[in-house]
Structures are given as C-alpha cells and as structure tokens.
C-alpha cells in the first residue's frame, strides 16, 4: 500500500496524478475463506479490519451486493457521540468514539473526524432530569460529558434561539469530544486497509443462499458462485432479515426508512452538532458548509430508501423554531436510508442459532457512530466464537429474557 501524505501528493502532482494506485483491489472470489463478512458497509469492513488487525485473521472475504459503503454508511448525518445512558451502549459507543480519534492515522486515510462538540438540548423539565441522569451515568462510565447552562449553549451555538416561546433551551448535555466524520471516507479507509492486508473485497456480488450442514455454516451461494467459509458474519443492516431467512432463523428486526437532508452550503455559522429531541431534529454544518439535518423514522416497514415527506416537514418546523435564521436557506437534497430496528432499538452483535454464523445488525438510526466499536466487538465475537465484554449484552436472546437495553428511558434517543 502506497502511503498517503502531503509529500506523496506533491510528488504525484508533478505527473498529473497518473501514478496513484487503486485504493483497494477487486479480485475474483477464492473457493474458501477463513471468514466471510456479508456486507461491505462501515460495520462489515470494520469487522474485517479488526479480524485482521486484532486477531490475525486475514484470509477474509467481504462480499457486497452493491458497492462498498453504498448503504447507510454513505447516507447518514455522520454524527459521532457516546453519551448514552445504559452501560452496554455507553461502552461500545465510547469504544467507537475513541477509535475514531485515531482512525485517520490508523488507516492512513483522513476520515476527518471532527470532535467539534455535541449538544443534546433539554427543552422540558423532564428532559433536564433525563440528561442529568445520563450525565451521572456517563461519569461512572468514563464518558466525558457535562451538563451546561443555556448561556453556555448560546455561547457555543450563537445562532440558536434559547428563549423560544415554546421550547426554551433549559440547558444541554454536552459532549465536547463528540462530533462528526466524513462518512464515505470511513468505508473507503477501512476498505483500503483491508485490501492491503490481503483481504478480498468482492463488490457486485449478491448472496443468494447460506449453506449449512448439521446446523453449522459452510458457505454462501452468491451471484458469483459458491464460496466456502469457516465462519460467516452477517452485517447487512436493513437486509439482515433476508440473510437470516437464508440461514434459517428469524430476527427481531424490522426495516423502516429514516430520512435526512442537506441545505445549500453557507459560510460557517454553527461549529457544534445540536440535537433537539423534544422537537425531533438534529443539525450540524458540514465541512462544505451544508446544514446536515436528520429527522424521524417512518412507522411502517419499507425497503424503498424513500421516506414519507411529512417527517422532513416536522423536523424543519422544529429546527426553524430553534434556529430561526435557517428559514431562508434552501433544501438542496433529501434522501432516505433503510434502518433496521430491534424491539429495544439497540443493536445485535450475537451468535445465532446456526453454528459459526454471527449477526451484527439492528443499529437503527445510530449506526455510523458505532462503526469502529461494532467492528471491534464483532471481530472478537467471530474470532473467539464467544462475545467479549463489549458485545455480550447485545445478544439476540435478551428479548426472551426481558433484559432490554433501552436508551429511550431518560429523554434519550437511540440515534
């Protein structure tokens, strides 16, 4: 792998950049691998990367129906935070956040992690109590968050209207090391690093069936033929149900559309990420200057990557009330992603009823921020066959036991 640096750019510039090599190879599949990951989104690629880096397993194929990073990895609002309430959530999201801190250097690919700070606004007394609970939980979890006053909110976000007539800002839960990253670059960076370790990224290859013998996985039937494997990791977000079906088990997962939009770019006016959960909106400003806005999910199963427009309207009403100056900006583009939601809106990183077959899904609206932590935990699960501390709580049997990981309990949200 040719190292990226400013010197490399300068050198290539002299030759009109004709000398750059491919960021990743596109090989034909081998007959068999030690591990196959289905799904070359952020979570799948991160799983493969940590299988190699942490566990020395590099005879790995990552199989992707479309193009790598083409699913939710490339359609989210790029928020990174770990100020979750429940211990198991805080653990994995904080692991992820800390890995984001050094990801550009680890991968030699600038993913532009930008810990610009993240605010969750409290706009009701109930929310104040909820966020104070989260702040106390975070203090014990080793997640650096603080409760800040309305005045401090205004200082961090000058464009905010803190004394709106309806929902005045009563304070906020602030995570100074939360922020954003360049979503595509995360997938590309991992892909390049996986490829450099000798892993095969096989794009445009659809899995058509999962072969098992005596309840143990043997390989996958694909549009490029049968590929054998000792271990199978299913990391396909909204299509997890279909893959589970092929492997012969059911998942407590439903697919719904989540929408987002960006405005036309304007000069920088908001440095931090703001989430306003009472009014269901969140907003940040990208490095390009666009206001990146996320909203709510549809309440019905949907695979179209198109959500219902009224959610966009509801989100914008709320945000215009919170940030009155955005009213004259324009919506440049809106889109939907298909997110996979479990019964408690927390993910699954779990063994399955099928031997050597593992599942990582159910990230719902919060997947991007978890990518490195999720990959780390999933790689450990696949390498050892048993979950480590990070993954343990996210098993798929928790619903039967009634042991929920419910983030909605303290005014929090799962995204």
């Amino acid at each position: 792998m040719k190292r990226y640096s400013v010197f490399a750019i300068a050198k290539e510039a002299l030759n009109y950049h004709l000398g750059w090599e491919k960021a990743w190879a596109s090989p034909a599949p081998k007959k068999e691998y030690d591990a196959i990951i289905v799904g070359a989104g952020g979570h799948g690629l991160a799983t493969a990367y940590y299988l190699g880096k942490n566990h020395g397993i590099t005879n790995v194929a990552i199989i992707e129906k479309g193009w790598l990073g083409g699913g939710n990895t490339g359609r989210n609002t790029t928020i990174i935070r770990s100020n979750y309430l429940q211990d198991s959530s805080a653990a994995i999201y904080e692991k992820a956040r800390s890995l984001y801190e050094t990801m550009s250097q680890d991968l030699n690919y600038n993913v532009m992690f930008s810990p610009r700070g993240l605010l969750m606004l409290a706009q009701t007394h109930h929310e104040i109590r909820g966020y104070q609970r989260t702040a106390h939980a975070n203090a014990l979890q080793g997640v650096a968050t603080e409760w800040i006053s309305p005045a401090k909110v205004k200082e961090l976000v000058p464009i905010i209207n803190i004394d709106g007539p309806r929902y005045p800002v009563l304070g906020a839960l602030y995570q100074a090391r939360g922020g954003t990253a360049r979503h595509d670059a995360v997938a590309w960076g991992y892909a390049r690093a996986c490829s450099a370790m000798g892993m095969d990224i096989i794009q445009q290859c659809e899995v058509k069936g999962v072969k098992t013998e005596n309840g143990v996985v043997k390989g996958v039937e694909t549009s490029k033929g049968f590929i054998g494997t000792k271990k199978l990791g299913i990391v396909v977000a909204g299509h997890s149900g279909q893959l589970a079906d092929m492997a012969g088990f059911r998942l407590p997962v439903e697919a719904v559309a989540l929408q987002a939009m960006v405005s036309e770019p304007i000069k920088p006016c908001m440095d931090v990420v703001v989430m306003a959960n009472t009014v269901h909106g969140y907003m940040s400003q990208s490095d390009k200057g666009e206001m990146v806005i996320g909203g709510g999910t549809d309440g019905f199963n949907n695979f179209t990557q198109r959500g219902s427009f009224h959610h966009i309207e509801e989100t914008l009403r709320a945000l215009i009330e919170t940030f009155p100056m955005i009213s004259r900006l324009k919506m440049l583009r809106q889109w939907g992603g298909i997110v996979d939601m479990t019964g408690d809106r927390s993910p699954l990183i779990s063994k399955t009823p099928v031997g050597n077959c593992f599942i990582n899904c159910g990230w719902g609206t919060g997947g991007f921020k978890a990518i490195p932590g999720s990959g780390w935990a999933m790689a450990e699960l696949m390498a050892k066959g048993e979950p480590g501390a990070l993954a343990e709580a996210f098993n798929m049997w928790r619903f039967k036991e009634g042991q929920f990981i419910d983030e909605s309990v303290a005014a929090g949200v799962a995204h």
Partner: protein
Amino acid sequence: MSTRLSRGGRLIDRSASQEFSFNGKKLRGLKGDTLAAALLANDQMLVGRSFKYHRPRGIVAAGPEEPNALVGMGRGARFEPNQRVTTTELFNGLEAQSQNHWPSLEFDVGVINNSLARFLPGGFYYKTFMYPRAAWKHLFEPIIRASAGLGKAPKDRDADRYEQAYAFCDVLVIGGGIAGLQAALVAGASGARVIVLEQTAHWGGRAPVDGDVIEGAPADAWVKSAVEALGKMENVTLRVRTMGAGVYDHGYVLAEEKIADHTPGDGRPKHRLWRIRAGRIVTATGAIERPLSFAGNDIPGVMLAASVRDYVVNFAVSPGDRTVVVTNNDDAYRTAIALKEAGLEVPAIIDARVSVTGDLPARARAMGIRIEAGRAIAKVKGGKRVTGVAICIQAGEGSVLEEIACDAVAMSGGWSPVVHLWSHCGGKLVWDTTHAHFRPDATKPPTNQDGQAMVIAVGNANGAMSAADALADAAKGGAAAAEATSFKAEVKAASATQVTEAPMEAVWIMPQGAGSALKAKMWLDYQNDVKVSDVQLAAREGYESVEHTKRYTTLGMATDQGKLSNINGLAILAQSLNEDIPQVGTTTFRPPYTPVTLGALAGESRGEIFQPLRKTPMHAWHEAQNAYMEPVGLWRRPYTFPRAGETHEQSVHREVNNTRTNLGLLDASTLGKIIVKGPDAGKFLDMLYTGVMSNLPVGKCRYGLMCNEQGFLSDDGVVARIDEETWLCHTTSGGADRIHAWMEDWLQCEWWDWKVYTANITEQLAQVAVVGPNARKLLEKLGGMDVSKETLPFMQWADGTLGGFPVRVYRISFSGELSYEIAVPASLGAAFWEALHKAGAEFGTMPYGTEALHIMRAEKGFIMIGDETDGTVIPQDLNLGWAISKKKADFLGKRGQERNYLASPDRWKLAGFETLDGSVVPDGSYIVAAGHNANGQGNTQGRVTSTYYSPTLKRGIAMGLIHGGLNRIGDVVEFNTVSGGTVKAKVVDPVFYDKDGAKQNV
C-alpha cells in the same frame, strides 16, 4: 462586452426601467428581465467565485441549471444566500451581492487555491492533513471549515410568511412548454381535472426562442392560444412560478410556488408549498443543454449555446459582440443564426463533427457564417473574461491551428432530458445512443399504490427532441394520463414544421486526444471545481461506482446537483473504465428538482402556531397571574405562581407550606378522563389494570396501574365506578390520548366481540383539586351538597352542586392532605376557579403548580409516572404489588412480568433516601457499588428517581431504586455526582410525611 441590444426582447418591457444594485453598484434593467439578463445587459459577466479554487465565474446558463451565478439577495430579515440569478425575476430595488470571495469579487485572495490546483486534485484531503494528529483539529480543519460554504449565513428571523396548500387532480402536468400545454389540452378536453405547473413566469418554454413554427404560425401565437383555451376549461388550473420539486409515492407531488419573490414585502406569502395528489403525473420538463469539455471552458464568457440564444431573443441581451459557437449538434446553429440576425458577429462555428449537413447549418452557411467541421477548441483564452479561442482538430491532441479573437463562446454538447421527477420514485432510464442521453424507460416507470405507472414523460423530457415530435408525444402522453384516470381522451396534436436535423455526435472530451495538461483545465462541475482529470483520477484509484466517483470528487454535489455535469462526468468515468455509459449508470436523483426554501417546508408552523398549544379553561387566568408555565405534552401547566420578588424555588415552597397548612388550589384539568361503559366493561378493565376494577362498588374510587404487554408500568390513576355499567378512568396528563388509544386498540383488534364503549371526555371537564386542612370549609361555604366525612368519605365520589356550579366531587388525594377533586363543565371552569379563589380568600387559598404537586406527592412516597417509571420499571419494583391482583388469570403485562429478568429478585426496588447532611441528592444520580465491570465502567446498585428539598421536613428527601429495596433500610449508600464525588445517604421508608394517612382521612 455583453450589452442590451436596441431591438427585440420578447419578455421585456422597455418602457419599465427597474433599478437594482450589484455589490453596491447601482444598475438598471427592464421589467421582464431575469437578474441574469439585467447583469449581462450591464456587462457584468463576472458574478462569483468557484467553491474550491475561487476561480472567476460568469453566467453559464439561463435557467435552473445555472451552477455559477449565485448571489446573496436582500438584507437583514430578508437576506437570502445562494439565489440563482438566472431564475430570479428582476424587481425595482433588488439588492444583490456576489459570494465566496475576499476581499472583493475582482480581487479574491482565495484564488491562491487556483495556483495550487495541481496539488489539490479530487479527494486530496483524504490523503493528507493527518500528521501530526493534533494538527487536524487545530490547524487543517479550521482552515477547511473557514473556507467552506458559498453564501453568507443569514442572521435574523425571517420576515416573510409561508404557507402550504393541498390540491388534487387526475392529471398533473409539470412543465408549461409546448409539450406540457399540448398534454394539458388533450387531458383537459377529456374532462379530467388537470393542473399545469410552470416554474417560470412565462408559458411556452423554449419553442418561441427556438423559432419553432406550430400550426403554421410562430410558436408564441400557438402558446397564447393554448393558454387561452386551457384558461377557459373549468377543469384545468394553470399555475406559473411553481416548480414541481419532487415526486413521492402514491402520486404525491411537492411543488413550490414563488408568490412574492419578485414583490418582496407586499404582505403576501413569500412561497407556498403545494402538496398535490395526482392520479397521473405528466412530466413535460424539457431538456438541459450540456457543456462541452474543453480546456478553459469555465472562463466567464463561455456559455451554453441555447442560453446565449435565450438572452438574445427573450431579453435582447447579447453576451458578447463576437461569439464563437462550438458544438457537436445542429441545434447550436440556431444560436449562431439568432446572433447573426441580431446584428452580432459569429466569427466561426466550431463543429466537432466531420460531416455537417442539415437545414440549420445550411442556413448558417447561407448567412455567411464560417463553419469549421471536425474542429475543436483546444483552449479558451482569457482570465476573468474570454478573449479568444484556439482551434484544433477534434480527432487530434490539441495542436493549435488558429486563434480566433472573441468575447463569448456558445457551446453545446447535446441535450439531456430532465428526468429528475421521473426518477424520484424509482422510474428507470434507458441510454439513447442517437442523442447520447438518458431518457425515461417507459417500460420501467415509477408505480403507484395500484402498481400502475404513475408518471408519463413527454416531449423533450421523454427524448422527443423536435417540436413536432414533442407535440405528438405530449398529445399521446396527455391522453394516456387521462385514460388511466378513467376519462376518454382523443390524441390530437398540433402540427409543427419539422426541421431536418443531422444526428449529433457524442463528444466527451475536446479534442479527443487531449493530454493531461489540457484535461486538468476541462471543467465538468463549475461550482465544485471538478475537472475531467479528477474523474479520471477517481477511476484510476478504484472509485469505480458512479456513486464513489461522485462522492470522491464531489461531482454533481453542488447546488445545481449536477444538472450540467452529471452526464459529462459519467461519460468520462465510463471511458476511463472502458465501459459503456449505461453500464456505469447514473447517481440517484433525489428531490427537490431545484432547492426549496426551508421556510416553505415549515409552512404556517411558526411562532404562535408552530405547534398546537393546549390550554385548559383556566389557562388565561394562569397567564394573567404570571404563572411560570411548563410544557406537559402539548399542554402548558403552571409550574408555580411566583409573587413579586420570589424565586421559583421560594414560590414553590410557599405553595407547599400553604397547602399543607391552609388551602391550595390546583388546576388538574389536564388529567385524562375516559368513560368505559358496557356489559363487559368490568371484564375489560380487569384486563387493562393490574388490579381488579370489576368489583369496585358504585360510588367508590380505586387506584389502578396499567402495564404494557411487556409488563412495564405505563400509566396510573384513580378509577371511579359511576353506575352498574359505567366506569370513569383517570389517566395521567400525558396519558389521556395514549391510554384511550390503547383501550380502543384492544377493543377493536383483540376483543372485538366484547361489549364495551369508551369515550375520552378529558376536555369536557375542568377539574380542580381543592387541597389542605381548610378544603372542606371552603366547599361548605360554597354550599349545595354534603361534603362531610360521613357522606363523602375518602375514595368516594358524589354528584351535586357547589356554589351553584354542577359538579362531580371525588375524595381523592395525591398530596396526603384533605383533598377534593372537583369536575365542572369546561365552559364553567374559569368561573368556578375564580369562585373558589374568591370564597377561599378567608381560608388562605393559594393556587399551586406542578412542582409543589410533585414535592407533596414525594413527601408522601407516591410514585409519579415518568419519574419513578421510565418504561423499564414494573409495579413490583415500586412496591406496588398490593395493586396487582394475584387471583386474575390474565391482565395486560402479566405474561411479560413472568420473564426471567423481570421476575428476578435482583431487580432494583423503591426505597426512600435521606442524605446524611440534609442536602438534596443530585437529580439523576446513581448509587455506586464497589468495583468496575468488564468494560471498566463503575458498578452501580441503584439510582435516584425523585429528589427534592422538602419544605415540610426542611431537608432533602429522595426516592430511588436500589438493589434490595426496603430490605436495605438503615444502610448508608453513596450517590455519585457528575464531578466525580459522592453524597452519602441513608436508606429509609419512602413515606416521609404522615405515614398513617391521618391528615387525608379527616
């Protein structure tokens, strides 16, 4: 130079001069001008700077595809960034400023990036700025961010108003060019309800500019008659300045009407967002001309050929005195002819095709215009303005044959149908090799709720490129749309004189063999500075998917969303990958077609009507008393009633003390009240509540808990038995609608054969809690019914009158005091409330708010839904086992509570807490336990759920959940603080006040 011609201009009114300013410079235009036309008329070719390299940018187009000419408009509360000058109608007093430069448009420091362009290829930032790590945050990112964005951020609250409206039709025609009008004529004649939208202020589209002849007359005449005919049809609605923004599922279309953009401040809504539900959608959205990729094609003065024609014909504005036309098709000859006819010079037409035939070249030749076949532009000369072009052979590598002096270049790379609306909902495209463009694949249309095609593309938008073909296609499409919505339509198209055009020839790079140096100067995306070389670099590096290339290079991600650049870019990508264009495919088309103002999307929902604010009948009284209100769902409830000089805390404490010693009045109107009636109502309530309600005697009240099917506590309240078949269920304030819906869900979907009716009568009644030792005295003073302990003991209710008001009185208490909750019809609520205050003055009446309510209930150890519960708490956790029937075989949540984790003795349970130092436990605090878990997090053994300073006990009190619950009484535990410390507290009984209930049972 660009200037106003002395003759012509079909859209301008020379008698109506309009004054406007650009960068503070006072200029004049004419009524009917776009801002672009007016700027060009004043020789303002340079209008902005590009995003990345800050290169000088001029007007390229004449419509919504314009990528360059974006300005800030207006000021203060009417300032608007990124306004496209080509679609902005000029008005008197318009103020515009150019964007993305410092210190000035003419001299921009950022242009340094241009000199460094070689070192800043597509995606360069992914490869650098990584070392040292801290530098990204502190050095690189701030620089990148500071250079981000185009227009200035507005500062003020928007001064304009917006609205939305619904419309319904059988056939929605989007696009008011000749194809749209033709489709509308046919559909309208069938009797179908038709709406026609046109994004500009004018009907007719390009045809009048292109000199089309329809029904033997100039297109203008036909357009006029078509619009008149449509105007006479009652079933047809015509709407200009309305852009079809997006097609959504089931025939839903969003359109933005720009009502007052050209008359700002006239009191009308600025924009109106239309939400149209259409049976069929006809997209007659025309086509967009493509640039050609030659070196220097971004220099101001290089424009789309048809746009040059637009300015000349529509506005009598010539972009240049000497315009070189460069093309790969016949259509651009129309521009040369129009320029020539306007008396301007066309030094040459550079045609990439070796063989030039067809009617239009013949006409041009006859007019004496020099035509250079098989030639290309090697390079455009000039900096902030075109000064000339260097000519070469298209088939070669760019050796210059000749330089031609000129001040404008009109280029045409062919036309791409506007397929956005077709594609929004999944319509597929097919590659048309004849025209080298994607057009709608009629066999794979977007489908509606019935699985039927819902969009029909017609005219240029469907690849029917000549006027005659477009009209025929549109008549067919209009008829198909009408027939699909059950009307009988006749396909009748106007005839147009067919001009024979020779085939165009796909030209993606000019010249074909251009080397790296030239390709690094060929712009694809003008705004984002993406060049041919960048796309080739992306392909070389493996970003092979068109989505990868787009994201890696930012091609097509600018405010025009690739209207000019996408096809050219993916052709380059296909060439680089050695694949066919259709194999590479396009990126996904997403709404909106052109950007829509956020204010329009929020519509009326701003300020006072941002959201419904629910008001109790006493709301106005509370406001008049300066109550501090808090949102409870959509209600506002008084949190406290501070008096002059009091803090909220002081006033809450006063309210508690007064209620405990004298008399407090609480507006409890928001409490949910649901009537449940029927022969099976008792059985139903026994399923709904954890306890038994069927055996509640008439006249009595009972506290009940409701769980969801998981077993978690979801609501609580007092149930009153009204008569043999009727119960009244009180819910929490936030729970009324939710619980009513929950009841209906079970009655309709599970137990539909049970005879039970429900009615949510929450708003029928105002309810007042009269609380405190003097409560009975007050009611006795009002008189009208017996409220004595004997007649109306605790947990009973009675109907009667008080002070002449018809009331229902419940003896229930959430404070531990003698307490009556009194319901009156809502329309009497305010009067009753005031009567209570008036009569109660001698007993020390004060109103109290929700915070005093919360404190008093906490002092009594009563749980509060939302405080003690959070969706993961079961009644058993709260020591409410007494309210759960052991006898019932089933109730909602019972099975859920039998699951391992919920039945575990290890669950945290409710207890009371008193800090050792009397302080208040921090809200949200956890009770720490020894050690750390496997993830290194501090262990916990419980948490606080309610914590207050008790004015009654004069110390901090708290309720919380702790491992071991009441078995831990007497233990001292530590609550954590956010700063890392702890607060020591003793575990106690959660009933802090009047443990025996002596005060309420009087």
